[in-house]
């Protein structure tokens, strides 16, 4: 078989590339974390600041994922199932978070919600602080992870067509019943992929949250911000340990994606 050596070469090149860029650096982080024993690592991730950062990240995900799921499904229905005006511009706007750098997103949020911002000044008068506080971080996280559910659900909705929904209507189902009993079960895989990607993005968000949070340790720090702060403070064990927690969360997400793909294929 003449193709064999080149196929082997291709595989080695691909694996080598992945190893150099991904596996070795991530592996080293794990190694550094546990180099002085599990106890040291455990201590580093159970400091009050690290714990707070962990729960902050969980909180961001817990708010951003449901918000973007509901919005994503509703937006996809509007784009595919309605003839209402403004669909083209909405479709383009949904992709904006992909195109705009997170840092710019953060700055833009400050312009709107900061104390001098045109919505922020009104909010401040009513005792709501958005920037340098968790509401701003939630908004930033939602913004950067917004497109995933929409982008996963739109093609599925197109593919399933409207006949099943029409059949449901002629059988006496209201639009709401049709959505719950026919549309949602038909798009469930698209929604599930979208949710997983949204979770991964929300977990790892740094730039936009960094700008709007003010980075107060124990107050407005997520895990990614905590990693950076520990790193800047020359506390490498602390930075590595927090990184491992982040990486473990990400691995969980990837694992669920893989499992989902497998369930779907069978």
């Amino acid at each position, binding site marked *: 078989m003449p193709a064999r050596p080149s196929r082997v070469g291709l595989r080695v090149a691909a694996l080598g590339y992945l190893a150099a860029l991904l596996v070795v650096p991530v592996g080293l982080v794990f190694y550094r974390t546990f180099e002085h024993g599990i106890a040291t690592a455990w201590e580093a991730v159970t400091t009050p600041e690290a714990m707070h950062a962990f729960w902050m990240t969980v909180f961001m995900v817990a708010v951003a994922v449901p918000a973007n799921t509901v919005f994503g499904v509703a937006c996809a229905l509007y784009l595919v199932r309605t003839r209402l005006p403004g669909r083209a511009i909405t479709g383009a706007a949904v992709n904006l978070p992909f195109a705009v750098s997170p840092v710019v997103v953060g700055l833009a949020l400050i312009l709107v919600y900061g104390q001098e911002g045109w919505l922020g000044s009104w909010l401040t008068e009513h005792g709501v602080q958005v920037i340098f506080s968790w509401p701003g971080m939630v908004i930033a996280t939602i913004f950067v992870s917004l497109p995933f559910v929409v982008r996963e659900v739109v093609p599925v909705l197109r593919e399933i067509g409207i*006949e*099943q929904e*029409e*059949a*449901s*209507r*002629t059988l*006496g189902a209201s639009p709401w019943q049709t959505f719950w009993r026919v549309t949602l079960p*038909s798009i469930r895989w698209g929604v599930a992929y979208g949710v997983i990607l949204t979770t991964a993005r929300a977990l790892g968000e740094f730039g936009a949250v960094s700008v709007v949070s003010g980075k107060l340790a124990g107050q407005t720090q997520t895990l990614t911000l905590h990693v950076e702060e520990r790193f800047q403070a020359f506390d490498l064990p602390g930075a590595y340990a927090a990184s491992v927690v982040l990486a473990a969360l990400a691995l969980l997400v990837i694992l669920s994606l893989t499992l989902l793909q497998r369930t779907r294929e069978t």
Partner: protein
Amino acid sequence: MAIDIDHVSKRFGEFTALHDVSLTVPNGSLTALLGPSGGGKSTLLRIVAGLEEPDAGSVRISGDLMDGVPAQSRGVGFVFQHYAAFKHMSVRENVAFGLKIRKRPKAEVRRRVDDLLGLVHLDGLADRYPSQLSGGQRQRMALARALAVEPNVLLLDEPFGALDSRVREELREWLARLHDDLHVTTVFVTHDQAEAMEIAGQIVLINEGRIEQAGSPADLYERPANPFVMSFVGPVNRLGERWVRPHDVELLGEAREGSTEAMVQRIVRLGFEVRVALTLADGTPLSAQVSRVEVEELELEEGQILHVRPHRGTVFAA
């Protein structure tokens, strides 16, 4: 329940799908909306079902005005060309859908679904999923699902269009028998004139958004309103002003009164029936449909010159 369609018009952008259509479908009838694709027949059916809104005109089902009544409240059963099976539900769940929406007691749902699955010969397949069924089985499931809610009218949009010809014929006969048993007012859309002729009590021939003719199959065949109807419901020859069916062309060995000379071009034997393609002296093509016996008597062969006489024919007023 009778359906009254009163001056219904529908446009899609620049395209006029229906142009001031009025029609009555009698209670308990089996009516075919027949016509070429894109002629507006599916649009008319969907307007009756409430899946499309007419731009003008109105629909009544058993006398009740349907203006603004959503599809879910019209009490119609609708069967789609591509089945529209709920893919994530088993056959049983598909058929039970309408009953569950109506919150019928569980025992009743179960009994009724079992009865319907028996009626459509899917007894043993209740726990299968649509992807595990053949096209014909899926369409029978869809029919059971539509019948489950005891619709006032049953509407079928090209119900057998996606099936192969054998299954098609089976289901066609079966639908006719089902209609005889249930007497539910049934309207089906088809572009196949044989399908319409075979099972419909009333045929409505629709073309370019207008009704060309409505009547019994015999009416349309024997007394077509215009050349379009005549040529749509069966093959036809044109001889000057006259339109003649191939089986009304007499082949003669010698000249007689009213006959003309013609040359045999091609002979196609389809069992008992034989189709003969001829050309007249002036080059006009003519097709004749004769029996095997006649072919043998005349000793027909290609290239032969003989005499033809149309013994009936229709002249339409210009």
